């Protein structure tokens, strides 16, 4: 009994030590004012860009420990800004983002793999109450005291019900939406 307790205690200690080691320099949060989350949609054949001003990102990342790495982003959907108040009001309304019922979107990676040019991840995106896997590609570059994580993704807005009623038509608003992100990461305090 004593032996078992000792074994459990020591394995817990090792686990804690490993976690602490992994935690040093691999746990980050995105600095909001220097980070950028952008989307590119197509309206009547012409691209338009918008950003989300408010989002938080928690990142656990070490290039040599991808299995335990994770990117977790929460987006305040009402912070959408496409540089036109009328369009932003329409986007926040029930047919598009429906922010009164779905104020936040959430993305969390499930697997991260190394690619020839950087990294790729598959994560679950919850948007407008629908959760689906969305792949992303990104680069990770350590910078003094932190890191920069930038990349892109593509998704189909209708997979998430973004665009109901008259906004369902892909003639008016294209189905494919590009996402670009650039996160300036600071060590988690």
């Amino acid at each position, binding site marked *: 009994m004593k032996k078992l307790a000792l074994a459990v205690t020591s394995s817990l200690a090792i686990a804690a030590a490993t976690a602490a080691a992994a935690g040093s320099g691999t746990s980050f949060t995105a600095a909001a004012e220097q980070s950028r989350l952008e989307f590119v949609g197509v309206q009547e054949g*012409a691209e338009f860009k918008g950003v989300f001003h408010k989002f938080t990102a928690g990142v656990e990342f070490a290039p040599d420990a991808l299995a335990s790495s994770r990117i977790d982003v929460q987006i305040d959907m009402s912070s959408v800004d496409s540089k*036109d108040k009328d369009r932003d009001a329409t986007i926040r309304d029930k047919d598009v983002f429906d922010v009164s019922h779905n104020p936040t979107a959430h993305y969390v990676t499930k697997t991260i793999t190394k690619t020839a040019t950087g990294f790729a991840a598959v994560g679950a995106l919850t948007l407008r109450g629908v959760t689906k896997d969305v792949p992303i590609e990104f680069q990770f570059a350590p910078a003094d005291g932190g890191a920069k994580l930038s990349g892109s993704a593509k998704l189909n807005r209708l997979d998430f019900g973004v665009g109901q009623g008259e906004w369902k038509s892909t003639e008016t*608003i294209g189905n494919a939406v590009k996402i670009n992100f650039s996160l300036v990461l600071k060590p988690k305090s």
Partner: protein
Amino acid sequence: MPNQNSPTRYSAVAQGFHWIIAALIVTQFTLGWTAQFLPLGARKVARLDWHKSFGMTILTLAVLRLLWRLFNRPPELPAGMTPIEKTLARATHVLFYVLLFVMPLTGWMMSSAKNYSVSWFHQFTWPNLIGPNEQAFNLLRTVHDTLSWLLFALALLHILAALKHHFWNKDDVLKRMLPFTKTEKRS
């Protein structure tokens, strides 16, 4: 030489520019003025998309027409017109040319200011002329709307003048812009 201005008639090229642009302008008024009464939504966006595509078509034609006009003189105005009538007629035509450029350009700038880039019939996208700017958009919209009324008044004057020349003065001012008609050679 069918593409040269004969002394009494507008050439086929000049007539082509005139009637194609005239038809496009009628289309533009229909699309632009009716879109104003639609609520903000997909129908309005689609109608304005047509308006923008036709507008860019007019701007392109206006560039070609002006270049063509610089190297091809139109037929002379009827000898019976007084100097002040001739000046007024020329001023009307100059103003038309100015509006052929200013209307599409202010429209293009409006779209740029509102961050709605202009597509040409979904084939390609024109670059934005200015950055997103709500104040600039409001000013440009006022200019575009006001000038649309000026263009409407000018077109009305133009049509009435053509009819007056045809039925009152009984000269060939209208006929020389009409295809499939003949005008007398002036001595």
